[in-house]
């Protein structure tokens, strides 16, 4: 795979694909949510509509009761015609009044007698009743409604001002509430049956609709358009402007307004409607997408940076390793040639040369060992043999390994004196020990000593490696445990190495259930190595 293809694939796999998946999932979720929301909205609308109808019905029932009382009073009065005239004059919801005989014949207003246009048309409108062609008794006479104490009664007929005097304690008369259709207009005739006939009124529908109009506006609270339509679908009143003329739901108004239907429409500016919900969802989704793209971008950038750094580190590693291998090899070759040619005769010098050869071969062996270890660890091929043993057993080996280097130097290592029984891989532990001591010798030689202390803590051993060298600055500390890191990576560095020692040590420590880290100290550098305590050996 070339250099360009990999980031593209990564971009696709890390950002675009998850974003698309997220988008798809979001869209499905939104669709479900929207359906659920719409279902809820429909249910809420139905509840609202039913409640509104109930309020209207209560008002109509209150009106019916008022007329029952008025008409009963009039029917029982001495001068029913005078009382009827007064009712017509004063009651805003009364258009016409009448009194008729048992056979239906109008007694008041008197047909044929001088009268105004409105009265003549009234008699004509209900001629079928007054002439006896239609029966006055309709089958479904209205039951007395169960009036609720707290109805909208007051708001509906407020200002009529007649209700107070219109209550009769006597037994209620049967009231007929009759819808009438005439010249394409709806009307309502209300009458009670008295001994000799009927007394009643015709409702003023325009005034009724006017009051219903205000009532509907109050009920809808400026939130939902409620409309009342007649039998032809013509709007009688509507509480506010709907978004369109298609009603969502409608209900019959029932017995008291049998020709009317109550409808609920979509509001013009839905405050919490589906579209609002969609906008919110889209915004949220957009933000998620933006965030994923940003996160993807940042992640990709970080990955690129890391790749570059690793590439650089590998290049450095190769050149370092070549150099590290070359130096001991050159020394080996030079010293071997000198000895072979017999040019060195002084036995002391010969001995020194041979020691150097030994040192350099040790160094070479360590280098090879580290590189191999690293590749094994990277490939996950290193198998650890975990067992209980005393770490002190390894001290001698370390000392031995470092003898050549320590010889002639003032540097001393102080190992713990008491046994340190651990549960680990013997070789790996030895390697860590060696790496840490070797580092101290290499980098903290001027401190002249390395103190190793062992402390038991919660089933673990904590080994502190305290040197008294230059210590590490913050920059050096940052990448200390990374592969190919060297505290001084410049070409002029004084100390050799592959930059793998600490990296390998930490990985080994962790694989054995412990850790390796820096710990704060006032002087030099201090490493803290934790490793599990032996399960069987007791100190």
């Amino acid at each position, binding site marked *: 795979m070339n250099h360009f293809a990999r980031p593209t694939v990564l971009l696709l796999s890390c950002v675009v694909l998850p974003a698309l998946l997220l988008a798809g999932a979001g869209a499905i979720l939104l669709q479900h949510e929207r359906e659920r929301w719409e279902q809820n909205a429909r249910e809420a609308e139905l509840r609202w509509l039913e409640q509104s109808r109930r309020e209207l019905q209560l008002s109509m029932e209150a009106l019916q009761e008022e007329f029952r009382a008025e008409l009963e009073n009039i029917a029982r009065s001495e001068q029913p015609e005078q009382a009827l005239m007064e009712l017509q004059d004063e009651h805003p919801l009364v258009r016409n009044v009448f009194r008729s005989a048992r056979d239906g014949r109008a007694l008041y207003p008197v047909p044929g007698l001088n009268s105004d246009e409105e009265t003549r048309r009234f008699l004509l409108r209900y001629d079928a009743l007054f002439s006896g062609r239609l029966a006055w008794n309709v089958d479904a006479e209205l039951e007395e409604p169960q009036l609720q104490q707290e109805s909208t009664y007051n708001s509906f007929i407020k200002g009529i001002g007649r209700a107070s005097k219109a209550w009769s304690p006597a037994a209620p008369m049967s009231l007929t509430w009759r819808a009438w259709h005439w010249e394409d207009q709806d009307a309502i005739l209300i009458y009670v049956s008295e001994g000799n006939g009927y007394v009643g009124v015709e409702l003023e529908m325009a005034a009724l609709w006017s009051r219903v109009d*205000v009532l509907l506006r109050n009920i809808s609270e400026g939130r939902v358009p409620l409309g009342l339509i007649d039998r032809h679908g013509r709007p009688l009143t509507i509480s506010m402007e709907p978004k369109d003329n298609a009603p969502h739901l409608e209900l019959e108004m029932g017995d008291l307004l049998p020709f009317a239907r109550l409808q609920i429409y979509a509001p013009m500016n839905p405050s919490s409607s589906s579209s609002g919900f969609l906008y919110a969802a889209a915004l949220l989704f957009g933000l998620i997408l933006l965030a994923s793209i940003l996160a993807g971008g940042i992640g990709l950038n970080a990955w690129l940076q890391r790749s570059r750094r690793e590439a650089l580190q590998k290049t450095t590693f190769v050149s370092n390793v070549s150099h590290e291998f070359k130096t001991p090899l050159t020394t080996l070759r030079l010293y071997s040639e000198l000895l072979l040619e017999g040019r060195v005769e002084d036995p002391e010098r010969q001995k020194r040369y041979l020691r150097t050869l030994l040192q350099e071969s040790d160094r070479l062996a360590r280098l090879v060992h580290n590189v191999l270890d690293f590749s094994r660890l990277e490939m996950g091929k290193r198998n650890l043999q975990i067992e209980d043993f005393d770490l002190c057993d390894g001290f001698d080996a370390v000392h031995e390994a470092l003898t050549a280097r320590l010889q002639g130097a003032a540097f001393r290592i102080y190992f713990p004196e008491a046994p340190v029984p651990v549960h680990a891989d013997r070789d790996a532990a030895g390697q860590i020990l060696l790496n840490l001591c070797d580092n101290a010798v290499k980098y903290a030689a001027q401190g002249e000593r390395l103190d190793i202390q062992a402390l038991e803590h919660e089933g673990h051993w904590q080994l502190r490696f305290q040197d008294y060298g230059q210590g590490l600055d913050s920059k050096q500390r940052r990448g200390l445990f990374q592969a190919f890191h060297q505290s001084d990576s410049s070409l002029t560095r004084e100390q050799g190495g592959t930059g793998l020692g600490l990296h390998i040590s930490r990985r080994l420590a962790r694989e054995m259930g412990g850790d390796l880290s820096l710990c704060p100290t006032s002087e030099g550098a201090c490493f803290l190595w934790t490793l599990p305590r032996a399960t069987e050996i007791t100190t």
Partner: protein
Amino acid sequence: MKTFPFAMLSAVLLLGSLSAGEMKPLVRCKAELDRAVLPAGQQQTAVVKITLAAENPPVKAKRAPINLCIVLDRSGSMSGDKIAQARKAALEALSRLGSQDVFSLITYDSEVKTLIPAGQLKDLGRARDLIHNIHTGGDTALFGGVSQGASELRKYLEDAPKGMVHRMLLLSDGKANVGPASADELGRLGKSLVKEGISVTTIGIGTDYNEDLMTQLAQRSDGNTYFVQESQDLVGIFNEEIGDVLNVVAREVKIIIECPGQVRPLRSIGKEARIRGQQVELKLNQLYGGQERYLLLELDVPPGEEDSVLPLLDARVEYHNMLRSRVEKQGTRLLARFSPDEQMIFDNINPIVQNDYYLNKGAEAKDEAIRLYEEGKKDEAILVLERNGLELKQAAAAYDLDELLLESGNIMSQSLRLQQEGLTPTNRKELRTEAAQEKQQQKSKLRYDKY
């Protein structure tokens, strides 16, 4: 003008509750015949005028508090100068109210909004700001606007049933297209409102509004009606109207007429009075100071013998005196005298009754002309106006009546315009509004005629 002593017989006869020592009545009731002497020996139709004349209130008199609701059309068509002038007019009206008055303001387009709920104006600055911020919107929910306005006025109906003048001022420039919208329905709503003591004054602006609806609503609720062609005239109209409202001296005025024996009331001219057999009843919501309102009634009079006297009717009037806060009653009886002498009959013609009778006939002719024209009978419509103009002219000449002469000229010019231009929206509105104003006997007839 010649008069005959018999005329004295039909003079005002006070039956009311006034004793000698009391102040003169606020509203005087007078009944007159078109001819004080009727031809003897024949069944005939006589025209009677029952006049209510309200005194001007004394300068220092405390006026009645008013409950005013302005209902403003803010539909799309009102944009521009119309709404600007309407705002100005509303502000002007507001400035004329006092602390005892109640004010509310409704605006309507597709929706009805209660901008200022009914209440005494405590925060005038805020009310002004609200009016300044009225902007135009969509359709014309006129029915809803009127309904909501009535609902605001009702808030103060029970608290001050007699002592307050309740008035709605409806301004519209368009056809109602949300809710009930026929002239008949709005007229009936008006009739229902007046039972509660609410009069609606309608102001039509421009040439697109429904003048039938607006005049019906005003007429049947006993309010005034105006036709405004130029929006800058709005402020003047509002002022005129507020002037009327502030000048209400009597409310809940009721005229009850009883005709004895064989005298039968036939019909009322120009007004919607209730006739039941021998009884006629008319209710007026209010009388303005200095205003004269009357009821013209056609009576069927049985043949009378020469020199005999026949009582034609007893008229009673009841009203609530706003200046003295009490109900007052007045009454009068009208007698007719019969004579075979034609000269005597002619000499005893009452020019004032004739004047009003012909003016009302003129109003009826205008409505009739509109009806005929719209039935496609243009020529008949023109003829009705021409004939009526001529009739008025002759009557004006015969009885020496200047007002009638002017009106005859107006009707002749209307007939000419009908011939030349047809029934344009402007012509129709003028005819309809004038007819309504005449029937209403509107005190403020302010007309801004560009012709």
